[in-house]
């Protein structure tokens, strides 16, 4: 029998941020306790207004070995950055 609590990854929305960001991980017996533990471990200095937790084994990660085929092709595609357009003054702030 396994006695170790499962690992949870913790995501926090900061006071002024727009999206949740990964802040770390912790152990907890279930999702509710993972939220409470995250509150006590990661928001004691007023770091957040919202918490997400997900059990670590439910995450699927890209493999570091695939870094070349995964990410290098996009390095040479500057035209994908929308920096070549002249924005008419009438369009205002974009």
């Amino acid at each position: 029998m396994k006695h170790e609590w499962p690992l949870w990854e913790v995501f926090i929305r900061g006071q002024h941020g727009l999206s949740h960001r990964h802040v770390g991980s912790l152990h907890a017996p279930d999702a509710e306790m993972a939220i409470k533990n995250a509150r006590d471990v990661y928001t004691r200095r007023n770091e957040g207004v919202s918490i997400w937790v997900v059990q670590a084994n439910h995450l699927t990660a890209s493999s570091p070995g695939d870094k070349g085929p995964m990410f290098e092709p996009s390095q040479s595609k500057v035209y994908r950055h929308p920096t070549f357009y002249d924005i008419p003054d009438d369009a205002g702030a974009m």
Partner: protein
Amino acid sequence: MGGEAALLRFLLHLGDNTLVLGHRVSEWCGHAPVLEEDIALANTALDLIGQTLMWLGLAGEVEGAGRSADDLAFLRDVWEFRNLLLVEMPNGDFGRTLMRQFLFDAWQSVLLGHLLKSSEPRVAEIAEKAGKEVAYHLERSADTVVGLGDGTEESHARMQAALEYLWPYVGEMFTGDGADAALAAAGIARRPTACAPIMTPWSAVFWTRRR
């Protein structure tokens, strides 16, 4: 007992409860069974000491003898403390500490609910601030008590033993002292006469298991 004396005695009662329990809980710092619980218990202890600062600070103001919260916390002798016996009880195992915390949190959350409506604005203000902390303490301690009670055979037996050990100290929470009548008449404070989270489900569970 006059109004000011009754209020002072009541504030000492509140501040001494949180002072003694805060120190008891802080004994776990660095010793809890897992890191997450260690931090959570330390947070609870710090909240309780913070509440102590507010209650004893106000007690010093009401007394009007120039004593600060620190003076009241550290320069009184044992017989001058007005805390519930429950909060003094040794930590025992982790389960007993959490059971003691649950019994206190459940009572304190009801008490602070009454104090929000206090005719004394300084009391209502502290109750408002402490109430949010205590609502979280109660959620956490109640979940942990239920979790351990429903856990393994060993954790269940330990929680049952903890409840039986601490139950005799619960009655004192609902027993008034000389100050209560004066405070109730002035609309300043009302002691819980029953505490639903403790009295309803828990006494039912406790007494059926005992029989």
